[in-house]
């Protein structure tokens, strides 16, 4: 059984027992003390509120049916509880000063956390909220209410280890995703299965370094990728990924794709175009490598066509990867043109590139054309005319013998019919 539910149940039972032990006498006292409130000085400014709100019932729900119970133990453990923040500092509206509270306003985080709330208003969540989306996260969705804990606390919703679950409460909830038209669908499930998600849940060293949602998206600055200021906008993705993958980013920047980006060609692929965003897989997985070839082929249509004509291309097309993929020869991130001497496929380096898989390759061997087009004389006249000859041979043989067989079939069937008719007439008139 996972630890989560067990903890929750025991916490709930504990709180209930506590509430029964403390709450009932407190309530009774509150009733008695009703008349002389003005003169009674209480040590805890929240004692009066908890007098009702610690009760399991009937005051655990508002008139509208909203849960309003506060578990004292939980609250005292929370950041606000420890700082002895009074209930009325957050629940600061006038309605709270009268009993029963009439149409109280939600807790006002801004009364203390002014800057954070201001930042929030500009985030994807804040914009959606103000636009009337009642599903979009508010402070409480991520930080909790009466149980707010510092991010450093392992129990905190905003602790690294819990961020995935916190975001997944909405971004991994199909019903909410649908209701709130949350972009990206069930992103949490994708992240969970990605290499980042897998490492996060592993016991390896990378566990504490691997990015969680907020590392790429930010927290109080989450912005949609369409926003140029977003950490995950098309232009900013390389820097965001480069926070951890700085070497890869440098290689990419010096490569053809990075140079195109630098010169303003935004369609040139960045990190997520090839690796995906939430589906980032282990690049050593054959299935991903094979899929990557199709990804390259999405833009490089001519090259993937000629690649598929070779054994390399055919084997990878069947789903196997021992043979060369695009990256084997062109590199994964540098991808320099053949004319650049630093390119893995330049005349200077091609032999050593081939030798990675074919250690005994010589200068003759590397005259193999990994992208020969048999229909183009440019790729060599012998190849071109061999292909033409084979095609003519194929068509010629099949046409001649196909026709031969069809005529023979016709004659064979006609003869058999005639024979049967004769046999029948012989039987009738012997």
């Amino acid at each position, binding site marked *: 059984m996972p630890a989560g539910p067990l903890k929750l149940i025991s916490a709930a039972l504990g709180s209930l027992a506590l509430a029964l032990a403390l709450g009932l006498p407190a309530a009774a006292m509150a009733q008695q003390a009703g008349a002389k409130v003005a003169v009674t000085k209480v040590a805890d400014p929240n004692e009066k509120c908890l007098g009702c709100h610690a009760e399991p019932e009937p005051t655990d729900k508002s008139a509208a049916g909203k849960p309003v119970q506060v578990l004292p133990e939980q609250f005292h453990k929370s950041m606000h509880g420890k700082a002895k923040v009074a209930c009325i500092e957050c629940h600061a509206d006038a309605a709270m000063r009268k009993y029963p509270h009439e149409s109280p306003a939600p807790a006002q985080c801004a009364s203390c956390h002014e800057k954070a709330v201001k930042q929030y208003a500009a985030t994807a969540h804040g914009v959606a909220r103000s636009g009337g989306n009642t599903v979009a996260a508010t402070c409480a969705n991520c930080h909790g209410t009466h149980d707010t804990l510092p991010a450093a606390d392992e129990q905190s919703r905003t602790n690294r280890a819990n961020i995935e679950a916190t975001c997944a409460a909405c971004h991994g909830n199909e019903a909410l995703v649908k209701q709130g038209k949350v972009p990206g669908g069930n992103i949490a499930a994708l992240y969970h299965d990605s290499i980042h998600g897998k490492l996060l849940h592993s016991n390896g060293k990378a566990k504490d370094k691997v990015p969680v949602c907020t590392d790429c998206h930010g927290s109080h600055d989450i912005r949609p990728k369409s926003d140029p200021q977003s950490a995950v906008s098309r232009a900013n993705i390389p820097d965001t990924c480069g926070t951890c993958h700085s070497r890869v980013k440098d290689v990419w920047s010096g490569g053809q794709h990075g140079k195109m980006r630098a010169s303003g060609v935004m369609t040139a692929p960045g990190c997520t175009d090839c690796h995906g965003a939430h589906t980032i897989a282990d690049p050593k997985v054959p299935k991903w490598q094979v899929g990557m070839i199709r990804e390259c082929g999405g833009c490089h249509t001519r090259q993937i066509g000629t690649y598929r004509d070779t054994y390399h291309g055919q084997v990878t097309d069947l789903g196997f990867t021992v043979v060369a993929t695009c990256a084997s020869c062109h590199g994964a991130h540098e991808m320099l043109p053949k004319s650049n001497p630093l390119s893995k496929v330049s005349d200077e380096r091609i032999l050593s590139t081939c030798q990675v898989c074919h250690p005994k390759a010589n200068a003759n061997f590397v005259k193999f054309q990994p992208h020969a087009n048999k229909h183009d004389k440019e790729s060599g006249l012998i190849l071109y005319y061999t292909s033409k000859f084979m095609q003519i041979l194929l068509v010629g043989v099949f046409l001649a013998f196909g026709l031969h067989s069809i005529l023979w*079939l016709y004659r064979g069937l006609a003869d058999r019919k005639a024979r049967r008719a004769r046999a029948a007439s012989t039987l009738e008139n012997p």
Partner: protein
Amino acid sequence: MADQNPAEPVDAAKPVAAQKYYRRFDRIDRVMHSTLMIAFIGCAITGLPPLFSDHAWAAALASALGGFARAALIHRICAVVMITVFVSHVGRIFLAAVRQTGLLATLWGPNSMTPQPQDFVDIVRHVSWFLGKGPRPRFDRYTYWEKFDYWAVFWGMFIIGGSGLVLWFPIQVSAFLPGWIFNVATVIHGEEALLAVGFIFTIHFFNGHLRPEKFPMDLVIFTGRIPEHELKDERPGEYARLVREGRLASLEATPPSRPAILWGYIVGGAAVIIGTVTAALILFSVIR
């Protein structure tokens, strides 16, 4: 002889043992054909997935074979078997020519596989017969389409075998040939494979087994024996010649053994079925 209206194949209805049989292929011929057949299908099944790599059936077949490395191993084993059969056959013909039949009889005449003027006459006459404009040609021991099949294998052995060896031993080949030879070899190997597989699995199967006169199977290559009525009907030239030369009696054989018939029906039948399905897949893939 009823050329235009071949005699009733009443004999076909007779039980196997009640018919007269003549030897057409000896034991070694039969073993070689079966071995070649199995190795050919092995090469076809393991070689087609790369050739049609963009089709779902190809990936499924490659996985079913245990991955491309295993498929490649089977492909090469079958290739070696085919080359061995080919070399043994040529060696055997050569030895027989030197020791018994004589070089001339091997290279020319009714017992030779060499295309001869009569074959071209036969082509024209056979097509005329298809069109109902003449009698069926009086074929001798080897017909023109059988010779075509035979030489197609010969040609294929050099073309597919040669290109296959180039691709199998690239390092050795590149010691004396430039690397673009692998591009050429890939094209040749693939296209010729398509020709060979397509031809065997459609034309050869039709000519040998599936045409109305033979349907569903001609067992002669598995039993080595041809029934008397078939020899008279299908190869009247050979029958008449054997009678004339007084050699007919010496070719008389016992009826085919039960194991040979079973082998022919089961293994030969399986080959025809596998081949026909494969041909259908290829046709479907090429058309799409």
